[in-house]
């Protein structure tokens, strides 16, 4: 294995670290395989999105301020989550406006990337030599789609997965209903939205639902599992790292 001149800081995010470690491993190892030097700072924990979205700006400021400090001078930052990347790139500006951190926040926004975006747009890789035999369908996570303009990168990568048949998901850009605390505070609306998503997913007869955000994965996989569906849910990185066992 070689390490090239590219160095990035890999921000696993709190959910990936605690709930989806394989997503983190898949994403970070794939970057290494592409010759990227991956650094995982031990004290880099969370972007603060949950507090910010719930309206607790002081708390968000505390968490994000710490993250900003940890990431100071660390070069490009890559996250395996569109929504956390969108938090840093889109919302840190609002959070830190008129504070001593404003300039640092804007500077960080410019060197922050979502993982598939970094892979395709920055390194220029679309074929990582992955294989999967079965039908794959892809759900666009809202924050990545609308605040970072993602979607085409994931599709390009999936189209190079040997043996996979990528089928379109009806309403692929419709929200799955997660929305952080929304999923609990407005549980009935959230699950009504989820039902629509699950029906669309099941209509594709896919073996695998792929998305780029572990938040959506938590919601969708939670619903599919409750329905005892055979469709599995995986993060894009897991598919590309051949971490999805064939059945």
């Amino acid at each position: 294995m070689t390490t090239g001149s590219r160095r990035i800081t890999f921000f696993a995010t709190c959910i990936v670290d605690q709930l989806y470690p394989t997503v983190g491993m898949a994403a970070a190892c794939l970057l290494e395989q592409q010759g990227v030097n991956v650094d995982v700072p031990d004290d880099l924990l969370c972007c603060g999105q949950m507090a910010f979205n719930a309206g607790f700006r002081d708390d968000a400021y505390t968490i994000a301020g710490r993250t900003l400090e940890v990431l100071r001078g660390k070069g490009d930052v890559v996250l395996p989550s569109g929504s956390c990347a969108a938090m840093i790139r889109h919302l840190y500006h609002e959070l830190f406006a008129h504070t001593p951190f404003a300039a640092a926040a804007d500077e960080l926004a410019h060197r922050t990337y979502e993982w598939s975006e970094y892979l395709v747009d920055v390194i220029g890789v679309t074929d990582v030599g992955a294989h999967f035999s079965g039908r794959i369908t892809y759900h666009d996570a809202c924050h990545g789609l609308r605040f970072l303009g993602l979607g085409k990168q994931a599709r390009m990568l999936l189209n190079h997965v040997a043996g996979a048949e990528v089928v379109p998901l009806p309403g692929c850009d419709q929200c799955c209903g997660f929305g952080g605390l929304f999923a609990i505070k407005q549980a009935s609306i959230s699950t009504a939205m989820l039902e629509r998503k699950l029906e669309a997913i099941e209509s594709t007869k896919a073996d695998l639902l792929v998305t780029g955000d572990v938040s959506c994965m938590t919601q969708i996989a939670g619903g599919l599992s409750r329905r005892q569906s055979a469709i599995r849910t995986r993060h894009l990185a897991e598919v590309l790292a051949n971490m999805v066992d064939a059945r």
Partner: protein
Amino acid sequence: MTQTIAFYDRVDQALHDTALQTALNRATTRFVGNRVSAISALCEADRLRDQARAIRAYALAHLDELLPQLAANVEARGGHVCWASDGEEARRYIIELARARGVRSIVKSKSMASEEIHLNEALEHAGFEVVETDLGEYIIQLAGETPSHIIAPAIHKTREQVSALFEQHLGMPPTTEVPPMIRTARQALRQRFLRADMGISGVNFGVADSGAIVIVENEGNARLSTTVPRIHVAIMGIERIVARLADLGVMLQVLARSATGQKLSVYTSLICGSARPGEEDGPEEFHLVLLDNGRSRILGGQYAESLLCIRCGACLNACPVYQAIGGHAYGGVYSGPIGAILTPLLQPDLPDAYLLPQASSLCGACQEVCPVRIAIPDMLLRHRADAVRAGKAHPVEKAAIRGYTLTMTHPAIYRASGKAARLFSRILARKGRFRRLPPPLHLWTKQRDFPAPPSKTFRELWAEHRKQRSQNGA
């Protein structure tokens, strides 16, 4: 968390109302599809939206010049202008005018501004007969309801429900066919137009440089309401202004395409005051009510952008929350994403208005379709921050966020609580999933499983990977 507040009751009701679900599904799907094809037919849709935003932004930035200019031009054309700082002033002006002119019967064409000030109620209370003439609005007037959509007020009704209403109120034989229903309504409404003394309309755009007010519609009822009766009263929110007649080319296009997917609405009326001497058509008197009602308070603040809104309703149609619960669940006059921003600002007395901005997954579909690119999710987030600052956060949520903040700023606590969660999951989880969690997380597991944390964190796996790699001498 508390589920007993009115808002949550309305949400539950809506989610269990099968007729509502059917109607919403049919209508929003159609609107969304139409909008997509109408917008994609435009090769320069993005530029048009930028222009529309610029036109609206200019108008808002120059309200202090444009409003007096509009008023002066209206008066120069023989119209009268009422500056109403709130709903009370607007209602009083219209009621006093109607009394002074011996009005008995009033016809209305749909106007969200008049809904906002509950004008019908006040007029009826003052003894006037008021009939809504827009088909959708007429239907909900018969049903004793309020609009559930900015441009399609009866979007929540199925045709079966409309048939039942017409049978009850107009003696129409039951039918599921739309044309006989339209015929029945038209016949009933024609009589009302002919005997009305006053017509009340809303305003889509007030044009400052020419004193014209613009009304777009598809049924022609606004045209009848504003020309047949001898008095025409138009009510306009002070922000609904454009500087120049030339701005309409852009605004009318984006409005129609965003609202219903039409290239242009069927009728576009530019009304310049009352009938001049010698003119056969038009009312004898024209009054323009310029309604502030909280708008000048919004101007210049962190929600100022919401005043760019041209009330096309595209954000409602695109919103998955609106699609699930419909407009009435929002409780205010304006529903959907833009309603969740406007209601807490314009109707601060509504006790659960602060909850509306919570009812969003922040998916951004609203911003994507907004013809003037209002950053709706950002403003929903600001409302949430305001609610927290005002002490409205639920104690459980507040405690949870405190715990979360403590955890995410102290690596030792973070590691320890992660360990605790994994221990906890060994007891409660089955096959890597929780099927049941204690409150408040039970709200998650009611209809969804939750993943149990695996035995090792990413950090631990990565440390092992690194160690192995250095041993291999890589």
